[in-house]
């Protein structure tokens, strides 16, 4: 299934870059490759792609800077490849404008799945804000601020509603604790993680079939939360 016209793959390791490009040809009509941050920025300026796969370990520029620079020039999804596993690193990345990240070593299948999810989300974004969002058998009515499951109303507190709406509006995207806290509570002070842990736990008990095995609101350990719409 071809979801995109053009995807840019930025990686200094030529072999890895080529095999990623090879894999991505299944989802994009053309895949362009860049070996340095400078080339990547030039590419984006010359012929904007619909998605960027960016390896952070680049020879010429700091990966974070490349990510931030790309984000200033384009709204398309950026999927980052990183060798670092630390949560702080991930939080920094997401807050620098990355849409998703895959840690090395990764499987091509996993990377393809992430890329496809981002492309679908991008399509979702291009459309006008929807009136309703469907998450499996759950339906969010954005105008009436109600949630129903199979027609039956699910009663949420205002905070729970707000959490669910913010997450559901950006399916597949991990929102950091601070990003979510800011979006829901509209402030940056206070213990964001604690507030989120309490309210996400209660929200899951209302919308998940099995709260201990959540499928809709997924915890990204040490980073934040993500809404995963059922395929």
């Amino acid at each position, binding site marked *: 299934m071809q979801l995109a016209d053009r995807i840019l793959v930025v990686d200094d390791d030529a072999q890895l870059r080529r095999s990623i490009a090879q*894999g991505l040809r299944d989802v994009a009509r053309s895949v362009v490759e860049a070996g340095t941050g400078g080339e990547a920025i030039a590419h984006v300026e010359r012929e904007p792609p619909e998605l960027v796969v960016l390896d952070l370990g680049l020879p010429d520029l700091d990966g974070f800077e490349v990510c931030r620079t790309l984000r200033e020039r384009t709204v398309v999804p950026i999927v980052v*490849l990183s060798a670092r596993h630390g949560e702080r690193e991930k939080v920094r990345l997401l807050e620098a404008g990355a849409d998703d990240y895959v840690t090395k*070593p*990764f499987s091509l299948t996993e990377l393809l799945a992430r890329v496809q999810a981002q492309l679908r989300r991008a399509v979702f974004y291009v459309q006008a804000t929807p009136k309703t969002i469907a998450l499996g058998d759950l339906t969010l009515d954005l105008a009436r601020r109600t949630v129903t499951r199979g027609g039956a109303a699910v009663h949420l507190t205002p905070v729970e509603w707000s959490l669910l709406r913010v997450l559901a509006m950006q399916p597949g995207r991990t929102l950091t604790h601070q990003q979510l806290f800011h979006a829901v509570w509209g402030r940056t002070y206070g213990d964001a993680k604690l507030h989120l842990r*309490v309210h*996400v736990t209660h929200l899951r008990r209302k919308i998940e079939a099995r709260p*201990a095995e959540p499928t809709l609101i997924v915890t990204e350990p*040490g980073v934040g939360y993500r809404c995963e719409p059922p395929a």
Partner: protein
Amino acid sequence: VIPRAWRPWLLGLGALVVTTVALRLARDGVNQAHATLLYLLVVLAVSAKGGRGVGLTTAAVASVLIDYFFQVPYDDFDVARTVDVLALLAFMTTALVATHLVTTARAEAAEARRRTAEAWTLARLGAETLRHASPDAALDGLASLAERTLGAACARCVLCGWPAIGGRAPDDVLAALRAERRLADALAAGRALVVAANGAGGTFEPTAIERLSLTAGETVVLPLRVERRVVGLLTVRAADALPLAGAPGRLLTALAHYGALVLEWRRASDEAAREAALGEAGRLREVVLASLSHDLRTPLATITALAQDAAGHGDATAPAIVEQAGRLARLVENVLDLARLGAPGVRLDPAVNAAEDVIGAVVRQTRGVLDGRALRVTLPDDDDEPLAGRFDFVATLRILGNLVENALRVTPRGAEVELSAGVDGEHLALAVADRGPGIAPGDREVIFRPFHRLGERAPDGTRLGLGLAIARHLAEAQQGTLSYAARAGGGSVFTLRLPHARLTIDAEASESSEASLRG
């Protein structure tokens, strides 16, 4: 050269002689009143300059001189008129009272000057404490200020730490402390010492310092205290008789306080420096680990991607390459984790978390390795209150993920691994149970040691025996425990116990306000 003590007397004598000669020469032109007033002036001047003794003597001598030279009959001690006797008495009284007043005022002025000087010295002590860039320089500065203030009678003043004297303490004090254990004990208990030139020592209460008078060669040792702790010593060695009553005693007491303050400063700055060094080492280690991590993982990513590509083209050996690369990746991760765990400054961040949240993450993380086996989750039936504990989410996920992966590895396809949560006394207990072969009784602690040899006998030959060591380390780092028990009916149960907590916003209200203050 006239000795200093004689000067006021000579002054009084001279003034009287000059005045008497002058008045005597002009006796025909002056009356008794002129002479009396002039003598009164002399008495006042001499009192002001020379003090009480000289003043009173001058007054008495002046009375006699007035009587002899200037009262009729002249050049005779007889007094002709009663009124002259009264005049003489009036002069004497006035002179005595004036002398008394002048000398009292003079003494008070001197006392005030002395007090001002003392206050100034004490203030200088404070300034000296703060003026220096380093605590050691401040200690030397205080000591030399004390030496200057105590004067020539003070041979040497030294401030040093205790019990780490650090090469600063004078040798005779050190020798005395070494020779007599009781002296060191008394010092440690907060008493002060006097060490004689021959090394013999006695102890006294530091508050009694003003009752002490040092003789040449004696050394007084005062403890420098912070609260009840002795942190240093102040030693003063007398070159000459050195009475400590009054100002010198007060100076030494103040010096002991300031010295203690400087030593505390030194301790605090040493600690800060140590922290900084540790932090530096920790950061360096983190940089090395991060680049190692990058350099080890990037080729693995390439190998995996290439092999998957090949597998897609029908290469039968490629899946094995992918699998081996996966094992290598896990090993790299474990080794790097082990290296990180030993690093200073690596701290976990235990916070109140719901048990079901971390269990959900475990389920998600291990979904990919189930391979036909099942992971069954059991949680207690709680109506409203979610089961929660105080733990670091990522570390706990790592522990449970490792336990579940181990359990899956010994579980045949079609069977299941159980992951359950419950409250166990003060703890949140998370248990992973399998129906595998179990662990032999002798090996039940061995498996928690890093690089234990048991792994070689395990079905998966690549196990280096790091996973459980890391897991236990992580459990203990967040006030938890990780233990093994044989499972009834066969198999193993690994139980992770973490501090139990309630998941409410109120419960952590104080903590969060602290956190926001820190943040």
